[in-house]
């Protein structure tokens, strides 16, 4: 760990895959900018890989004041040990107060490893980050300007605020889509600090034999209409009806974690804290009870319609429009109704 350093920067780990930045660091830059402006410190991107100059500029255009760029062919592909070593060395040298990681497969591997090594705290899958004060009543001390790490917690319908008062840096992971994409301003300028690191072969204990990237087949973040199903859908066959509804509405399907666990839909389609956060124009929640983890991932949808047979289901508390009843009867009727509605429209 490092000592509490109130002048420390706010860092964003800038994940790149095959020489391209992923979305999540660009989203995190918007939050990092906000936190850093409150704290009166700089935002820095931390970039590891090979041939990074263009990527460094992109981070600056998206809000970074500085970029620590560690250009080394041995870092072109992510490995836990090599990346952890570099990040820990940088933390020890530059003493940032906050480090944010995307909760991607890489970030969720890297961040806990760094936390163990640095003996500092880490909170997974935050849905919000804020700056605030923490009074430790037992120690009778007040910690000002800590990062509040906010996330749904413990299965219950509870949101927890977590802080890391003394064992810095304060670290958190955030899923893709949780923070809005930062704006790109190509006139922004910043400083690129080139770091040279020796990567010895014992930091590369894993050999990557082959890699298959199919490209993202599912892009929930970009969908205008989402029809999502939960455990209440009851079967994979019933889920097909949702596909039909999504189709007539020109949208895509999605599922709650329960639906994924039950095998109704693949995990790429999961909406919620541990899935994707979405903000479509229309979100139709079918047979979803409305656990806080799910609501965290869809409550900012412009319009929400909930269909559930339990009139007391929590999902109705975020819905603009609710139908209480059996989805097996309601969904086919909706499909029919939208069809005929569309027909009327086209004949006009």
């Amino acid at each position, binding site marked *: *760990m490092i000592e509490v350093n109130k002048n420390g920067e706010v860092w964003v780990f800038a994940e790149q895959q095959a020489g391209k930045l992923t979305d999540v660091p660009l989203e995190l830059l918007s939050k990092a900018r906000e936190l850093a402006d409150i704290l009166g410190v700089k935002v820095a991107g931390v970039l590891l890989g090979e041939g990074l100059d263009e990527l460094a500029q992109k981070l600056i255009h998206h809000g970074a004041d500085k970029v620590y760029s560690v250009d080394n062919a041995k870092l072109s592909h992510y490995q836990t040990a090599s990346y952890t070593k570099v990040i820990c060395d940088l933390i020890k040298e530059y003493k940032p107060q906050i480090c944010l990681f995307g909760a*991607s*497969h890489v970030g*969720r*591997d890297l961040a*806990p*490893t760094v936390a*163990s*090594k640095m*003996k*500092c*705290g*880490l*909170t*997974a*899958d935050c849905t919000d980050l804020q700056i605030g004060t923490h009074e430790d009543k037992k120690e009778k001390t007040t910690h000002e300007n800590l990062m509040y*790490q906010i996330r749904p917690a*413990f*299965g*219950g*319908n*509870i*949101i927890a605020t*977590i*802080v*890391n008062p*003394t064992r810095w840096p304060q670290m958190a992971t955030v899923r893709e889509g949780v923070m809005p994409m930062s704006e790109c301003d190509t006139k922004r300028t910043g400083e690129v600090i080139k770091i040279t690191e020796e990567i010895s072969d014992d930091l590369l204990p*894993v*050999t*990557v*034999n*082959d*890699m*298959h990237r199919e490209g*993202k087949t599912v892009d929930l973040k970009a969908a205008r209409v989402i029809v999502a199903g939960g455990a209440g859908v009851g079967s994979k066959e019933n889920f097909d009806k949702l596909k039909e509804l999504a189709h007539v*509405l020109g949208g895509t399907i999605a599922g709650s974690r329960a639906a994924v666990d039950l095998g109704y839909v693949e995990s790429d389609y999961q909406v919620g*804290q541990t899935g994707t956060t979405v903000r479509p*124009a*229309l979100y139709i929640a079918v047979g979803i009870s409305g*656990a*806080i983890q799910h609501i965290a991932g869809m409550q900012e949808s412009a*319009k929400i*319609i909930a269909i559930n047979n339990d*009139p007391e289901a929590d999902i109705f508390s*975020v*819905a*603009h*429009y*609710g*139908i*209480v*009843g059996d989805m097996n*009867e*309601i969904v086919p*009727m*909706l499909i029919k109704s*939208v069809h005929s*509605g*569309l027909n009327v*429209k086209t004949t006009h």
Partner: protein
Amino acid sequence: MRIIVPIKQVPETSAVRMDEKTGTMIRDGVEAIVNPLDLYAIEAALLLKASQPEGQCEVIAVSMGPPKAQSAIREAMSMGFDSGVLLSDKKFAGADTWATSYVLAAAIKKLGDVDLIICGERATDGDTGQVGPGIAAWLDLPVGSYVGKIDGLTDGRINVQRLLEDGHEGLEVQLPAVLTVVKEVADPRLPTLRGKQRARKAELTTWNADDLNLPDENLGLNGSPTRVVKIFRPSVTRECEKLIATDDQSINTAADRVLEFLQERELV
């Protein structure tokens, strides 16, 4: 070879109550099960054991928890594990992922001679997925996370398929190593009757903080860098226009009303 699988006992339901004072979970009075995602790690370990010559591979479960967490270890044994170690001490209570991975790593070190550690991707209660990579860091071992398939062991290396967001990659990892596995890795078997009987009678090892020779300041709530300082139920204020649709007529009305709603807002 020796394979260790760290497992966690978790509440069966998602309806967990919180201690408002300490911000930690109240586990009393809730049915406890083995973290469902740990079952995949258990199965992966058993399959590797079966792939080795008879008597050449030992599989051990370790779990940190209250004394009743021994039932989780017995479940692993009923599925075919050779032995288990319970890490139990009041001083461990309230640990965050950092302090949890610290104790588990210390126990794995004490067991010694480990070739492979297989973890479930995450626990269904805390839902962080941070403990597996955390253990690897403490032990300075390579880690393969999100493993969806184990292809086999050769000459002190293990070949696995690691899932990526948009594909997968084949990794060859030097042993000893830590793997975190996802559901795709294997279908967990059910315990056998004989296994259950054996597990019931088995003598379990229990270690506390002193057995592991760990300093208090790194343990439990005290040793945890993070603090839960506030918990709240989000209050939602949205006015939901609710229709009851239980017979043909009301379903029709509801469907038409939804269509109107969509048309008003130009969503169709």
